[in-house]
């Protein structure tokens, strides 16, 4: 059957060529993983034809291991710091250094065209090296919520990567020295399709350079910038004929000045920062074309939301703060039947800063559940909730893949707690759920409810549990289920080290765990019950930090544990301690 002749490989009676052709059509990483497990030859073929890899944590393998297995990689995405870093919970120097990866990429991954680094520490020297060695082939560079570099590093990229189609810097902390990097981009690039420095505080950029980019780059489709005055962008909008997405800018002048502004015909994804009631009418002429609206950084109240959303029947994505209120949610449910993604963030805590109608509760959620049946993603901060609202979502939202709900802590009394039955209905009804986050308060979900989550989460791969359950038995009940759970985050729960360790051993798909807030054992050894080969355990001990307002904040300890082929980290900062070494 199998011909073992090295020059004419046959696998199961078929030649390699057949499999190579077929593999070119298989893109999903899980399918490819299955293929690679069939036999050695298919493993080799799959490795050689793999185009993209995402490493959910950059410490799970070394750069050399990645290159050895996938030598012809064209695109790579690496994630560094735990997700909690987006909420200021992780020490800045925690890790996720890009340097070893950039070095490997520059040395040997010669087919690489796209690099996406998320929550990593990147230095100017890394960008310089990348530009110098891969500048001629690099098409996509995304420094997503990264830190550690300056505009000098960006200038290197702009100078060396003339074929760059995507430059994405959203939410990165960049040390700003000047606007040269954008000027270099304007002078050297004609291929740019996406330019994003949204939420970076880069302000020394010139609107003239933006205008030049719009003129030179005929395919420019998505531009998200910082706080640049909108009136300075008249030229930019005039020349950006292909523009579909624009976010950023700000309004520093009186509303009348903006009335005659002309926007590109294809603009359908929009986010105008600091836009208030008076400027809102500029959106009306093309509101019916809008597919995506970002109002997170706008200055609209509840009534404004109602007025605007009524005019957007084609809206598919809405991001805003809870100032939208239940009334705004009802308008959304009536007017925006095509809505697929809804994100409602938490507004200011001080009553005077936000509209008093600006709270979302079971009323708004029920309306959305009944009105927006195509919803695939919902993330919402609620001030009140009932089981019935969750049941309604379970009954109606059959396409839901991603559910995230946080119960705000301002109200003392919540209408209907615990949410055990509602959550069970939601999970059993929305059987396509892949991601799930629930953040309540003590009393919000009992141990029974937590066990329900375990029993009804067939396909869920990522979960965040915040203040759920009453005791260890809830966690143990939960961990008997969740067959697909790969990544678990736990915050503010009352579980003991022992229970956490046992849960880890029971969750059969688990490969990543993050915990903040737990009942520590007196010896600190209970956690070791989950120690095993390839499982790294790290502790970020309790620490005090000074917030932006000068207030001292106490950060409780974190546990981070994950599978790795690379052994324990070798680049720990003082603020992180590997538990492995305690066992020596």
């Amino acid at each position, binding site marked *: 059957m199998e011909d073992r002749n090295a020059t004419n490989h046959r696998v199961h009676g078929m030649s390699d060529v057949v499999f190579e052709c077929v593999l070119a059509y298989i893109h999903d990483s899980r399918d490819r993983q299955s293929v690679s497990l069939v036999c050695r030859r298919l493993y080799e073929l799959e490795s050689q034809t793999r185009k993209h890899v995402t490493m959910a944590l950059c410490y799970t393998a070394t750069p050399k291991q990645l290159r050895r297995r996938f030598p012809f990689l064209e695109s790579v995405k690496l994630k560094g710091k735990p997700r909690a870093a987006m*909420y200021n919970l992780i020490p800045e120097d925690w890790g996720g250094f890009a340097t070893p990866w950039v070095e490997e990429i520059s040395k040997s991954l010669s087919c690489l065209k796209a690099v996406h680094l998320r929550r990593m520490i990147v230095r100017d020297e890394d960008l310089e090296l990348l530009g110098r060695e891969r500048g001629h082939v690099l098409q996509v560079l995304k420094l997503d919520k990264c830190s550690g570099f300056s505009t000098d590093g960006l200038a290197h990229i702009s100078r060396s990567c003339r074929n760059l189609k995507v430059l994405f810097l959203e939410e990165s902390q960049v040390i700003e020295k000047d606007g040269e990097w954008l000027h270099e981009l304007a002078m050297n690039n004609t291929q740019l399709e996406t330019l994003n420095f949204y939420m970076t505080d880069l302000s020394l950029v010139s609107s003239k350079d933006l205008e030049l980019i719009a003129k030179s780059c005929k395919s420019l489709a998505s531009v998200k910038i910082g706080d640049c005055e909108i009136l300075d962008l008249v030229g930019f909008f005039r020349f950006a004929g292909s523009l579909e997405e624009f976010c950023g800018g700000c309004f520093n002048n009186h509303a009348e000045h903006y009335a005659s502004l002309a926007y590109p015909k294809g603009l359908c994804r929009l986010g105008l920062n600091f836009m208030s009631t008076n400027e809102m009418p500029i959106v009306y002429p093309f509101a019916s074309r809008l597919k995506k609206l970002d109002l997170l950084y706008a*200055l609209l109240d509840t009534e404004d939301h109602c007025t605007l959303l009524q005019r957007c029947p084609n809206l598919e994505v809405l991001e805003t703060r809870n100032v939208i209120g239940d009334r705004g949610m009802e308008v959304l449910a009536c007017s925006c039947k095509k809505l697929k993604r809804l994100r409602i963030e*938490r507004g200011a805590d001080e009553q*005077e800063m936000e509209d008093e109608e600006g709270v979302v509760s079971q009323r708004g959620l029920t309306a959305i559940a009944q009105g927006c049946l195509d919803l695939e993603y919902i993330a919402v901060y609620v001030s009140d909730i009932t089981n019935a609202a969750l049941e309604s979502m379970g009954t109606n939202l059959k396409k839901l893949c991603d559910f995230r709900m946080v119960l705000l802590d301002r109200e003392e009394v919540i209408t209907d707690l615990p949410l055990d039955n509602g959550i069970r209905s939601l999970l059993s009804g929305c059987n396509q759920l892949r991601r799930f986050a629930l953040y309540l308060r003590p009393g919000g979900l009992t141990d029974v409810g937590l066990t329900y989550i375990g029993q009804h989460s067939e396909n869920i791969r990522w979960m965040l549990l915040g203040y759920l359950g009453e005791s260890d038995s809830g966690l143990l009940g939960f961990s008997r289920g969740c067959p697909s759970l790969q990544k678990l985050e736990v915050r503010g729960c009352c579980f003991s080290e022992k229970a956490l360790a046992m849960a880890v*051993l029971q969750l059969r798909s688990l490969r990543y765990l993050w915990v903040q807030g737990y009942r520590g054992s*007196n010896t600190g050894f209970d956690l070791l019950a989950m120690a*095993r080969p390839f499982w790294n355990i790290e502790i970020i001990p309790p620490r005090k930090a000074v917030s932006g307002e000068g207030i001292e904040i106490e950060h*409780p300890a974190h546990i981070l544990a994950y599978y790795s082929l690379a052994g324990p980290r*070798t680049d720990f900062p003082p603020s992180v301690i590997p538990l492995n070494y*305690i066992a020596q």
Partner: protein
Amino acid sequence: MSESSAVEIDFFRLEEESSSPNRLPSRRNIQDVISKINPELLKPAIASAFANNGFVANKSFTSPLQLQTLPVYNQDCGGANMATTAASLTIFYNGTVSVFEVTPNQAENIMKLAESVKSESETAVKPESNQSPAIGGVISKDLPLSRKKSLKRFLEKRKERQVSASPYASLH
């Protein structure tokens, strides 16, 4: 960041150049490595793992995900004279961290001492168990809801704009 301390088990025997002709199958490889763990230190770790019971080792080495509950192996343990080689013992206590160089025997004695103290004063310790355990477990109310960085920045900027636009006027 040296490669020498990185652990790599070559499951698929990809490194032909460094292997001998009669290379051991991968299953044996893992067991070899694990057998190099210092038995002195295995004991307390295994004892605590088995005390919890419920899921003890009857699983075979079919994949890394189903391995037994053994402690992490120490790569440096090969061949050296265990009894007298000092290694680091790190102790977390009451918010402080101390590191000592001790021999395996000393380490075992210290751990035994800690365990005996713990079992004696178990009932006395219980009401305090939420306070300051070794690594720092905390009760729920000490952990306030944290805000996303990007939104925090926006809300700060908005406050600044309102103050500079009308420092004496009320906001609504």
